[in-house]
């Protein structure tokens, strides 16, 4: 019985992907962004809300991305803001994917009237663009970082529910499911222990793509002034504030903008790397 290390298995996994190059590039970019965020937890050159008289400075060694119109260090704010964006995007995915998997699994497996009713509700939610739906929810329940996370999470449920449901419909007629039921395995165990692992391929690429949409949606919402409130930084809000001084200190907008691009690009490339033409994971 040979035991292979995680590192070794990961390497073989990557080299068997349909597009290993994309995946590796995405991994490097994501690692850079994550490094900046993690360093930001322990050390930031300046406090993200710390004011100083050096206003609207161009990038220099003291201020890597310059300072904004209140003299706050843009780089420190980017470090803080991207942490907020990442957390909101992750929370969104946990809520959206968690509820989506639960709903998709149950409706797909049981079918019948429950399926019809729940999926029509999902279709109705799906008809609205994610950001618009989140805006409605935020205007109903008020803004704030956590509320935005919940709003986006709910807005993302239908896309996951549909994908998971169709996978369950495909899997539930497989012989191994019949076999499990003959052995006396209960319905819930069949759903979550036997079928769920077979859905993970499709789920993974959907998670990566969904994560991108969540990052963009969070940035978009905070650009519009919903989400984390001033003076606390968030990437979208920094772009909104920086646009009035864009021609004097472009780094106020470009800094947070580039981080958003890198975050999305990294996950897109990783998602693209594991996706085959049919959208499923390669064996």
């Amino acid at each position, binding site marked *: *019985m040979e035991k292979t290390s995680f590192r070794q298995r990961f390497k073989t996994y990557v080299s068997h992907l349909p597009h290993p190059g994309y995946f590796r590039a995405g991994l490097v970019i994501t690692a850079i962004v994550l490094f900046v965020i993690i360093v930001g937890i322990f050390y930031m050159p300046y406090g993200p809300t710390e004011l100083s008289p050096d206003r609207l400075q161009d990038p220099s060694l003291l201020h890597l991305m310059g300072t904004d119109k209140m003299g706050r260090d843009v780089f420190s704010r980017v470090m803080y803001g991207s942490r907020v964006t990442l957390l909101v995007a992750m929370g969104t995915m946990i809520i959206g994917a968690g509820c989506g998997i639960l709903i998709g699994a149950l409706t797909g497996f049981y079918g019948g009237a429950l399926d*019809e009713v729940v999926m029509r509700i999902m279709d109705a939610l799906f008809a609205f663009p994610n950001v618009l739906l989140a805006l409605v929810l935020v205007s109903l329940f008020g803004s704030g970082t956590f509320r935005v996370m919940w709003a986006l999470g709910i807005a993302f449920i239908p896309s996951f529910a549909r994908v998971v449901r169709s996978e369950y419909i495909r899997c539930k007629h*497989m*012989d*191994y499911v*019949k*076999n*499990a*039921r*003959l*052995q*006396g*395995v*209960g319905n819930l*165990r069949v759903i979550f222990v*036997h079928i769920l*692992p*077979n859905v*993970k391929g499709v789920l993974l690429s959907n998670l990566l793509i969904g994560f991108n949409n969540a990052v963009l949606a969070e940035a978009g919402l905070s650009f519009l002034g919903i989400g984390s409130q001033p003076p606390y930084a968030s990437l979208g809000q920094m772009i909104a504030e920086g646009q009035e001084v864009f021609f004097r200190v472009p780094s106020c907008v470009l800094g947070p903008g580039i981080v958003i691009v890198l975050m999305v690009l990294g996950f897109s490339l990783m998602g693209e790397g594991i996706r085959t033409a049919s959208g499923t994971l390669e*064996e």
Partner: protein
Amino acid sequence: MSGKTNTELNGIWKMHAPLEGEVLRATNLNVFYRDRAKLLFKQNALKQVLYDVNFHIKEGEILGLCGESGCGKSTLSKTATGIIKDFTGELLLKHGQPQMVFQDPYSSLNPSKKIGWLLEEPLKVDRKKQWTGEERRARVREIIAQVELDEHLLERYPDELSGGQRQRVSIAAAIMRRTKLLIADEPVSALDVTIQAQVLKLLDDLHRNLGLSILFISHDLRVVYQICDRVMIMQKGRIVEQGTVDEVYRNPQQEYTKQLLRAANL
């Protein structure tokens, strides 16, 4: 299409029935498929696929079930295991839940679980006995030796095994809880000839050593001749002929049986 509605389908499917010398007895089985209604609230239409099926399986025998594809062989097996519930008539089983071995060894094993996990699963969900981890592993080792597989395969995934090995794993999972009746639905049709012979020999050995009764479904009369004690011939949802293998093969009564034998060059 028949005029029957749901409420008339009161077929009896019963385990642990008091049968003498038989493990399964089916009386007047009529089995239906349910066409899903196109309109909500409309009564589902029923389509009859098996007509007045009567048969029994004796304790410790291998009963063959033959017929062309689409004649209802698999439907009969699914009714016997209780997967299909839309039937009338009576199906009695002497022991507990019969287990199945399916035709396609590529879809009957969960692709995302290791062989060891797949074999332990029937023990984990056993309601009669709480198996400890150590007992489960011991039982798995015992069975894996019985189906002549190597222990290192336990750490593999199904797609790393050959068709023959997978079919052995399916059989192992089926006999894990000492089932007395095995329903093998075309267990060797997807395998090539040499592997077929090995798997047939394994089934025959298990039948002898464990006193296993087997309902062996196949469209291949040669295979049935090799392994079965008795054989039933099925045509368009009816059993047209049954008897010992020698009787049926030497002296077929029905024109359809003769056709099948001629087609198989027997």
